[in-house]
């Protein structure tokens, strides 16, 4: 049963790789001779850059907001999550609009100084560096979120012990808090990096050729499915090796809470220069990742509100919210079943299948969508053949082109988010609790229901909200799989933006962000409350 579910979710990914063994030597020769090195290097730099960027922006802010007091800290605590509501391709549009050579900033600079093209240096937004910056700005909240939750959950005892053993504040951060938070930080980092690998909109808009743009170019431009799916397989191999490396490097270390003694963490009150530095560390990512782009979107929305606000608009909002809500619930359910199943059985096959399924997060939405269509369309065809035999008529498509298909695709794409969150939550619960529950007569389901679920309420909420916001922002799979006459905010924003009407795209983009803000705030509150021992 468990295996079947894991396999079903992994099916679309496997379906795309069905082409992997079709040889395409001639196309590969062409790729090797021309663009493959670019794809490899750009992807590598992008991943390294974003990895460094999200840690740099996310970790210090997380530590400051867990351990210190400084002016504005209560605001930053939740506001630092806001960039999560901003889709990467939209932040890319806004910054391009502002900082482009022909945009207002550079034009003003030229007007003021009389310089022309080539007279001055101005960093180009549409570049590899720009893509790294854009993705870091909207993805760092994953690291911030998970690291902060981990810091907050750390029992004060370990920190106090480290202090009594002679560590100073910095030492206890680097030698105790950081290593203890490692699984959470790695989870946040891997979410950010997987999303980076799957990103198509930003890199394509910036003209940065990566593996993802390469897959599309090979599939559609060169018309070679085999070589394209081999490229995708290569990308997956890369992800898989990363995951394995991380697991291997943890060795046998386990990260359960060993003590449930808890007392509220005393926060360091920062003053003077230190406080100012802390404010800067928190304000900069918030400003660049949220306030500035939202300001630009607001400006665009105001100038175009008359065109965009029609009766259809309410429908768009409703469609977006409904899809995101349903997908989040499904993803949580599936993650609970798979996560808890693994805890119980440890079947290596289930483990492998759910690992494969969870890789969907690193695969571009379009590839997932096609991967979903392949088996679903096959089932539809079989059903129609049967109905023709039995009843002499076609029933039409029962799966393809329904919201069910779309929700399924979301699950394949975002299972990683909910599964990793749930697994991290389960991992913190000592196995002895399971044993105690079972010895007191609870069934395995009872243990989950009566013990685990209440213990990880915060975790569950986190999983739901993360998927919710992700689906709200999702574009490519929605675009391909949605039924007739069904649009979402992301689709509307994309259609306008890809028609090069950035200003008109402002309003739907702003609504995506606005709809994402509420869950993001809820998320922050639920984490603020989740502390070990406080149940």
């Amino acid at each position, binding site marked *: 049963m468990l295996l079947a579910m894991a396999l079903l979710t992994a099916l679309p990914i496997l379906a795309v790789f069905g082409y992997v063994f079709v040889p395409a030597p001639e196309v590969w020769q*062409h*790729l090797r*001779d*021309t*663009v493959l090195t670019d794809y490899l290097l750009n992807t590598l730099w992008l991943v390294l850059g974003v990895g460094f960027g999200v840690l740099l922006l996310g970790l210090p802010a997380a530590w400051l907001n867990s351990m210190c007091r400084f002016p504005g800290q209560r605001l930053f605590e939740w506001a630092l999550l806001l960039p999560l509501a901003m889709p990467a391709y939209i932040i890319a549009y806004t910054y*391009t609009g502002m900082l*482009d*050579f*022909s945009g*207002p900033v*550079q*034009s003003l600079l030229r007007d003021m100084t009389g310089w*022309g*093209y080539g007279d001055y240096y101005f960093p*180009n937004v*549409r570049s590899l560096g720009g893509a790294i910056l854009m993705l870091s700005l909207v993805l760092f909240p994953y690291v911030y979120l998970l690291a902060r939750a981990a810091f907050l959950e750390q029992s004060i005892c370990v920190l106090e012990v480290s202090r009594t053993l002679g560590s100073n504040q910095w030492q206890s951060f680097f030698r105790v808090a950081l290593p203890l938070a490692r699984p959470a930080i790695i989870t946040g980092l891997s979410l950010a990096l997987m999303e980076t690998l799957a990103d198509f909109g930003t890199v394509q*808009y910036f*003209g940065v*050729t990566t593996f993802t743009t390469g897959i*599309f*170019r090979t*599939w*559609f*431009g*060169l*018309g070679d499915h085999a070589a394209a799916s081999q490229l995708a397989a290569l990308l997956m191999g890369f992800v898989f090796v990363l995951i394995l490396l991380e697991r291997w490097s943890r060795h046998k270390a386990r990260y359960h809470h060993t003590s449930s003694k808890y007392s509220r963490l005393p926060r360091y009150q920062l003053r003077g220069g230190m406080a100012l530095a802390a404010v800067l560390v928190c304000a900069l990512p918030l400003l660049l990742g949220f306030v500035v782009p939202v300001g630009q979107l607001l400006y665009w929305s105001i*100038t175009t509100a008359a065109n965009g606000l029609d009766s259809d608009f309410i429908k768009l909002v409703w469609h977006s919210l*409904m899809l995101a809500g349903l997908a989040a619930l499904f993803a949580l359910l599936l993650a609970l079943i798979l996560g808890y199943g693994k805890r119980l059985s440890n079947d290596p096959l289930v483990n492998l299948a759910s690992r494969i399924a969870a890789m969907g997060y690193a695969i571009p939405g379009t590839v997932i*969508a096609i991967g979903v*269509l*392949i088996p679903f*369309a096959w089932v*539809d*065809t079989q059903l129609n053949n049967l109905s023709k035999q039995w009843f002499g008529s076609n029933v*039409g*498509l*029962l*799966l*393809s*082109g*329904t*919201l*069910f298909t779309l*929700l399924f695709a979301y699950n394949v794409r975002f299972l990683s988010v909910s599964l990793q969150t749930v697994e991290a939550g389960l991992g913190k619960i000592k196995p002895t609790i399971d044993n105690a529950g079972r010895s007191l007569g609870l069934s395995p389901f009872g243990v989950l229901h009566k013990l685990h679920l209440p213990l990880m309420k915060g975790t569950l909420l986190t999983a739901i909200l993360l998927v919710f916001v992700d689906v709200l922002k999702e574009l*490519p799979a929605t*675009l*391909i799989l*949605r*039924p*007739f*006459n*069904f649009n979402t905010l992301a*689709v*509307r924003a994309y*259609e*306008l933006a890809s*028609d*090069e*009407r950035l*200003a008109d795209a402002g309003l739907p983009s702003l609504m995506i962000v606005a709809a994402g803000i509420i869950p993001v705030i809820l998320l922050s509150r639920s984490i603020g409350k989740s502390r070990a021992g406080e149940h």
Partner: protein
Amino acid sequence: MKKLLLGLVIASLTAPVLAEGEVNVYSARKEQLIKPLFDKFTEQTGIAVNLVTGKDDALLERLKLEGENTPADLLMTADAGRLYRAVEMELTQPVTSAILQKDIPENLRSPDNQWFGLTSRARPIFYVKDKVKPEELSTYEDLADPKWKGRICIRSSDNIYNQSMLGSMIALNGVEKAQAWADGFVKNFARPPEGGDRDQIKAAAAGQCDIAISNTYYYGQMLAGEDAEDKAAAEKVAIFWPNQADRGTHINISGAAVTRTANNKDNAVKLMEFLVSDESQEWYAEANQEYPVKAGVAPSDLLKGWGEFKADSLNLSELGKHNAAAVRIMDKAGWK
């Protein structure tokens, strides 16, 4: 309230019931550029139209995978190359319609009437008025000349309009000459390709390059739109129609094809015929600054002001035929 929500959710999860006779359209043309016409069609004929929009290639893939049972009757794309691909994938069927055959010029539909162009657009050269004299310009081929070094702005080769433009050169000059041209052309870029067509015009206006390549409707929209900065940028450049002495300026179409397994073929053809009616052709011209395909329908006043030009009469199927070759040439030339 809960029950209502649940009901709504369940209703939307199950397969949509598509009524008999309604035309189901998969369109790569954006909703805002087609829906108003569908609404008018429904108003006039009582035939409802259902729409899914998306990217060309993804829609083709969906159509292919859904196979025999696809609900789609009509496929619309924003480029001839994709329509050719749909024919190659055996997703379309030929249509006999006196109206379509009469109103649409021969080179703007497939030789065996598998697909039909509904609007047309050119991809000419735009030059900065105070930096380039029109006498210096002549043909696309000439843009590979070293005298243009560091002066040309064009978007990425991922874009289908560039692939089709190169496809037309392959059709005429062959792969080798096209490769030699692309090698020289890429060397003349003012910067690595980035952004969309409008961005090329804006970059030229701002001084980053002297020449930009863009589709005509983007230029038209910049001039006719409400954004003052866009308008000012567009006013700094002018159109040059290349290759007037030989094959003519490269054009492309947005078009449609009836799917092979269409359940409502008759109504789908009716919809296509409606889209080439005078009324629709005028709407296209006004709303999106595109050229009508139908002879006798005047373009918008703005487009008229750009003057008449000789358009390449190459059958647009050729663009699709040479698409993969074009992508390879671009890869080799280092056209990002």
